[in-house]
């Protein structure tokens, strides 16, 4: 219990990492196709989508909130980009429109929660429904396809053999880690999640920093939507359904407490990779769709169970 904080967090991530490695080892034994370079690159690339959304979700959850609207924001900002591009805007400008829309949705959530004092669950549930509806209205329920190769390179490009989405994701994690550990924003995010009242009484502008978390989540959802559009060459109004659950699962598997105030973005990255590896492995093994659901559910449960047990043991050993 009395470990210095940095150590404790470190210990946490080690537990989750052990889970990831165990899963990888199991798959390595189970199928020859798993542990190939191309497949591993492939897994990380696939994890980038949920991985980036989960970064924003980490900020939100650290403040003690939750964001159910990320999936819908992915759809809406993609459709906004598509509509703007169809209307003749150059792709860079269209992308800016998409990012702005994502940011605006996040700020909307933030305003409802801080100014309107709505519970985050309700505010973002509402936003989830509204943003999805607008995405469908804007696009008339159809995908908007056809983007220039320059834009599509976002998803298809490589740098030194590493797919661009992977680089983008890692860069976002690095920035997020820096923000959370080194800056005012990060410290206040933890403080607000740990004790909102004490934070306010310490003169922290709680509203602004809480809103910032949702804004970050909105913006990163928009970034994810750019990746998705580039990857699929199509902006879809029904994109991102259930992303919120996957992202929350990644965050929680990564050791962040849903009560707020404790957790790290590194843990989230490992959590997102666990989800990605799991899906990939089940596909490689050709597990039936029905059984896949059972397997995914079980692994989520077991991963967190083991992680909790390891942490408890580590704590006891430290005594």
């Amino acid at each position: 219990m009395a470990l210095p904080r940095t150590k404790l967090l470190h210990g946490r991530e080690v537990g989750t990492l052990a889970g990831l490695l165990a899963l990888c080892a199991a798959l390595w034994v189970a199928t020859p196709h798993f542990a190939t370079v191309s497949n591993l690159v492939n897994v990380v690339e696939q994890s980038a989508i949920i991985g980036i959304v989960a970064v924003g979700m980490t900020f939100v959850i650290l403040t003690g909130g939750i964001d159910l609207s990320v999936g819908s924001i992915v759809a809406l900002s993609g459709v906004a980009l598509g509509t703007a591009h169809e209307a003749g805007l150059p792709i860079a400008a269209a992308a800016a429109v998409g990012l702005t829309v994502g940011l605006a949705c996040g700020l909307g959530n933030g305003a409802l929660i801080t100014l309107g004092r709505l519970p985050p669950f309700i505010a973002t549930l509402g936003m989830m429904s509204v943003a999805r509806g607008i995405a469908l209205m804007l696009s008339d329920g159809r995908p908007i396809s056809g983007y220039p190769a320059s834009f599509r390179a976002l998803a298809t490009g490589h740098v030194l053999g590493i797919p661009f989405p992977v680089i983008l994701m890692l860069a976002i994690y690095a920035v997020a880690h820096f923000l959370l550990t080194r800056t005012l924003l990060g410290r206040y995010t933890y403080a607000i999640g740990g004790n909102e009242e004490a934070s306010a009484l310490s003169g922290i502008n709680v509203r602004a920093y809480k809103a910032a978390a949702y804004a970050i989540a909105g913006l990163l959802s928009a970034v994810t939507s750019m990746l998705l559009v580039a990857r699929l060459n199509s902006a879809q109004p029904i994109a991102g359904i259930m992303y919120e659950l996957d992202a929350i699962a990644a965050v929680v598997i990564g050791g962040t407490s849903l009560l707020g105030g404790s957790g790290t973005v590194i843990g989230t990255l490992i959590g997102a990779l666990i989800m990605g590896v799991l899906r990939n492995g089940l596909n490689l093994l050709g597990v039936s769709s029905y059984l896949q659901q059972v397997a995914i559910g079980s692994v989520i449960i077991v991963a967190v169970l083991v992680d909790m047990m390891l942490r408890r043991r580590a704590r006891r050993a430290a005594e």
Partner: protein
Amino acid sequence: LGIAACNRGDGGAPTVALVLKTLNNPFFVEMEQGAREAADSLGIELVVQAPEREIDVEKQMQIVENLLQRRVDALLITPSGSREIVPAVVKANEAAIPVVVVDTRVDAPALEEAGARISSFIGSDNVDGGRMAGRFVAERLGGQGRVAVLEGIPGHETGDSRLTGFREVLAEHPGLEIVSSQTANWERDQAFNVTQNVLQSHPDLDAIFAANDVMALGAVEAVAAAGRTGEIVIVGFDAQDDARIAIREERMDATIAQNPREMGRLAVISADRLLRGETVPAEQPVRIELVTGQQTGAVEAPAREE
């Protein structure tokens, strides 16, 4: 058959309700457009409603109940569940509102058991479409090769029928093997991931059949990302605009056109005739077509014996 009830008593234009499975799927968006065009030209007020999720029979039933409260004059419906919708049909019957079923058949024994009646069925057969896709793949691969299947949301009837037809045909060709059958939940990005993963375990894949075009297009992008466009035959279903374009650009090979626009049009015309007291045929088949780069083979959907 045909119901002579005419509810046009209250003066204004008759109101016809079209209840779809969802409007999040371009297939039904096109159906709505066909219906709207017909309604506009016939002077009918068309109310279109759909649950948010394609598989939500319970919500669809609630929508029907609510529209019956509104006393629409006729009900056109694409059932989310072929048996589950029967109680809703019963309620419409009780309110003396004619029912036209579109796209997905209502289970005949269940209908009979409940003593419910429908005025007409308009649509094509998903199983047949699946067979058509199967025959295309068999032909293109010369009866020899490894095939991957992208399933829709597990338990979803439309996808299941399409796959049934497809598997039926493949079973007739001992040289064709389904090496992987995985769900991508009707979604494009999931299809992308699943295809990527399947290509890892089956790099020697020859063909992919997706239960709808949304997933097929995801597969198209994944195959392109693997640099294998043109080497793997990709067949979808629904003939969405995007899929037609991909076929034209030779990134995809074929899709099955069910012509939802025509279904919508026919449905409204049937409602109009029913409201005028005329009769309509119990079965109004809509053609399904194989859409490929080279040819457009049209096939008449055979009317099923009831």
